[in-house]
């Protein structure tokens, strides 16, 4: 199997671009699951919801879908708060361990899927940004804008969240609540509001990731189920509750998939990615950057 | 003090070292316990007492040195087999089985902890009807001694801190060990409760059970121990008759800190 340089270079680029997209999909899980121990299986469902909202608004007003999703992220933020409030009343308050939340969110996943079918119908939807058909060529390497723009916005979002969590008081409170919410409560911090804020943030990222998804490929309500495994794998591989880890985990899986597809058989890409995860878990159970 | 004739010690710890990254928690510690002997193990917090207990019990693997029980090296044995071989420990911070009642908590060590080839015991792997029920009277006897028989059906998760400590000790005793390690079993108990526990631990002697008591309650340690070993910063700085050890200058400075 020869490795011509052009193929290798492009495989790296494709892997990084894909990794950027995977990071946007998984950063929400890294917050809700990694930090708050909320097993939000419905996260991909909210991503698809984001795709549809971006589709409707940009279809009507002709604005770029990703811009629309960023503008509408406060809406998703409020949705996230409402969902967390229900989750908190039903589970967190009674000290239920996170497994119960799993079944709760499976129900939410089905509800969002059918709601999308009822409201938007079952046809494939897709949206074209102005850049969807342009590709930058730099020597042998090509950079399809359809993947580059989501990549850039995704990196900005993930790095922004990392800085927010590390630099601001509220951000540090979110990190603290992940480690020891009891200690935080003793210091007079209203942990409910902190957790609610963090979960709402995770749903806001889902809305934005939805716009990336619909720009990259056509979407229909049931596609969400395909990504459940992936988003949790990236979060755990990267390390529970570590945003930096999620980014690295996403790149590792993106590159693994891209190289397997290019040089071996694309059919084996998921087996390679998840095999990597299994190996990582066996040697470093708390993930690459886990706490 | 007559020289203990050449009887092989129940527990022989030689040169045990344990490091966590750069920090040396145990530095070549030697310790011997004769069958039925009452040993007090004291030392300031962070001196390595719990680490030594974990190495003996098998929940931690010592980096160097040997641990022998009745002359047999148990260094490679997993913790549960060390319990079968006769080493049973209680936890400094109580760890009850929350979903079970107090008496069910005792059924676990009775069924699984006692040396499996004991004559009367049916092997726990046997899928006959629940042998746990036959362990009732044995469990109740221990609960009476420790003063928890009234709460035998209470959920262990709901016990007070003090009762949880008693349950810890009761569970360790229920495994019928040859060597019982009581890790701060009396912290926070009232004077009368300390006396109850002391009476129970003294009772261990008749059953031929050696006891390592790790305590800060000096009154209890001095009264209980036939011998005292002192650990400071991972090293054993004294081992011998209680009165002599306590009077030793470096022990005093270690404790009172000059």
């Amino acid at each position, binding site marked *: 199997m020869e490795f011509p340089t052009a193929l290798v270079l492009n495989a790296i680029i494709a892997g990084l671009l894909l990794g950027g997209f995977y990071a946007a999909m998984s950063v929400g899980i890294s917050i809700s*699951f990694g930090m708050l121990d909320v*097993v939000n299986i419905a996260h991909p469902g909210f991503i698809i919801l984001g795709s549809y909202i971006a589709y409707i608004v940009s279809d009507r007003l002709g604005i770029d879908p990703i811009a629309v999703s960023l503008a509408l992220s406060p809406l998703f933020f409020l949705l996230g708060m409402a969902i967390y409030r229900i989750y908190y009343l*039903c*589970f967190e308050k009674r000290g239920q361990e*996170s*497994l*119960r939340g*799993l*079944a*709760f969110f*499976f*129900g*939410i996943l*089905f*509800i969002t*899927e*059918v*709601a999308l*079918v*009822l409201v938007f119908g079952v046809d494939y939807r897709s949206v074209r940004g102005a850049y969807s058909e342009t590709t930058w060529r730099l020597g042998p390497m090509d950079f399809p804008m359809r993947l580059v723009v989501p990549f850039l916005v995704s990196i900005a979002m993930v790095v922004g969240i990392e800085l927010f969590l590390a630099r601001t008081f509220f951000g540090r409170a979110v990190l603290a609540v992940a480690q020891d919410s009891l200690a935080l409560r003793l210091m007079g911090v209203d942990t409910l509001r902190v957790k609610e804020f963090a979960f709402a943030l995770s749903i806001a990222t889902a809305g934005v990731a939805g716009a990336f998804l619909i720009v990259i490929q056509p979407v229909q309500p049931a596609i969400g189920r395909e990504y459940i495994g992936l988003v*949790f*794998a990236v979060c*755990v591989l990267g390390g*529970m509750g570590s945003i930096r880890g999620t980014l690295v985990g996403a790149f590792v899986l993106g590159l693994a998939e891209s190289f397997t597809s290019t040089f071996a058989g694309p*059919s084996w890409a*998921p*087996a390679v990615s*998840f*095999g990597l*995860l*299994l190996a990582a*878990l066996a040697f470093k*159970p708390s993930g690459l950057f886990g706490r | 003090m007559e020289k203990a004739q050449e009887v092989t010690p129940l527990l022989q710890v030689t040169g045990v070292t344990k490091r966590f990254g750069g920090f040396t928690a145990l530095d070549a510690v030697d310790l011997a316990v004769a069958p039925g002997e009452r040993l007090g193990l004291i030392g300031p917090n962070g001196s390595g007492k719990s680490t030594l207990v974990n190495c003996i019990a098998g*929940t931690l693997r010592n980096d160097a040195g040997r641990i022998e029980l009745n002359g047999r090296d148990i260094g490679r044995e*997993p913790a*549960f*087999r060390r319990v079968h071989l006769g080493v*049973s*420990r209680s936890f400094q911070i109580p*760890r*009850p*089985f*929350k*979903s079970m009642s107090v008496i*069910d908590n005792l059924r*676990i*060590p009775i*069924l*699984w*902890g006692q040396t499996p080839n004991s004559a009367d015991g049916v092997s*726990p*792997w*046997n*899928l*006959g*009807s*629940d042998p*746990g029920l036959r362990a009732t009277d044995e469990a109740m006897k221990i609960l009476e001694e420790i003063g928890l028989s009234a709460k035998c059906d209470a959920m262990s998760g709901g016990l007070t801190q003090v009762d949880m400590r008693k349950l810890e000790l009761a*569970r360790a005793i229920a*495994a019928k060990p040859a060597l019982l390690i009581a890790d701060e079993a009396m912290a926070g108990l009232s004077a009368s409760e300390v006396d109850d526990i002391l009476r129970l631990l003294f009772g261990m002697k008749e059953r031929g059970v050696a006891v390592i008591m790790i305590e800060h309650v000096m009154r209890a340690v001095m009264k209980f121990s036939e011998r005292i070993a002192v650990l400071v910063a991972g090293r054993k700085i004294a081992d011998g008759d209680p009165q002599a050890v306590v009077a030793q200058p470096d022990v005093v400075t270690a404790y009172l800190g000059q």
Partner: protein
Amino acid sequence: MSHSRFALVAFAVAGAIIAASPLVPNDYYFSAAYTVLQFVILATAWNILGGYAGYVNFGSAAFFAVGAYSSVFLYKWAHPPLIVMIVSGTVAAGLLGLAVGYLTLRMRGVFFAIATLALAVVLYTFVVNWDYVGGARGAYILQPRDLPFGLTRYIHVLYAAMVLMTAFALVIARTIETSAIGRGLAAIRDDELAAECAGVPTLRLKVLAASVSGALMGMAGTTFPYYLSYVEPSAAFNLSYAVNSIAMPLIGGMMSWIGPLLGALLLGTVQQVVQVTVSSEWNLLIVGVLLVVFVTLAPNGIMGWVDAWKRRKK
């Protein structure tokens, strides 16, 4: 009740149910019952590792598929009788359970759950690329023509087999639960370190629980190829097996074998009824809403209510 007597009662009831099948008005009820009982076995099996020992398995669809595809392999290779397929499928899934059991050596809690999910994806990719059993093209498994005991439809054979397998699974689950092993597993669930220090051989018990749980989940899948006549990977590795095998014990109650049985009968029947009465996408919506409602109202499952009621009554 002693284990052997419970086993006798269970198989007697199973025999009675099978004997009563001529009273069933038509074949639809056999088909629906087959599916509901399939979920009873899956939920009961999942609970042995998930409920008793506290290790959550996200990859139950993989065990189900190992059972199904071992039957497909045998059908193509030697076309043995059904009982041979059931036994070998159960053993194959049990071996996978053994491997998963040793995973618990390195991983616990959520990491174990994600590892089983990863294992399911890896297995799915192998089956997709395994041409002998049809791979992505799928394999046709034709129901035998000559039926034993003069039965007219093969669904009766599948239904009877499923009833017996359900009895077998319940007996195994209850035997484990009400024995020293069950107590050991409960101790592991509550506090694994304390259990180890109380003399419980935690690794051996976890491996036993994982193997038995895996074997029974595989058993639930062994007759699936005949029921479906055409098996392809996405049918055998379907999300509904992963979802239901976790949701049903949660809803019924995870502390005893009765919980998963109740949860599976309840949620399984509701899914069957809704699926053939609501002629639109609303049926999935109803299942989703019920899942949310059940889980919020019954935090410790239905058996949780029963225990609380009993304790209040005492």
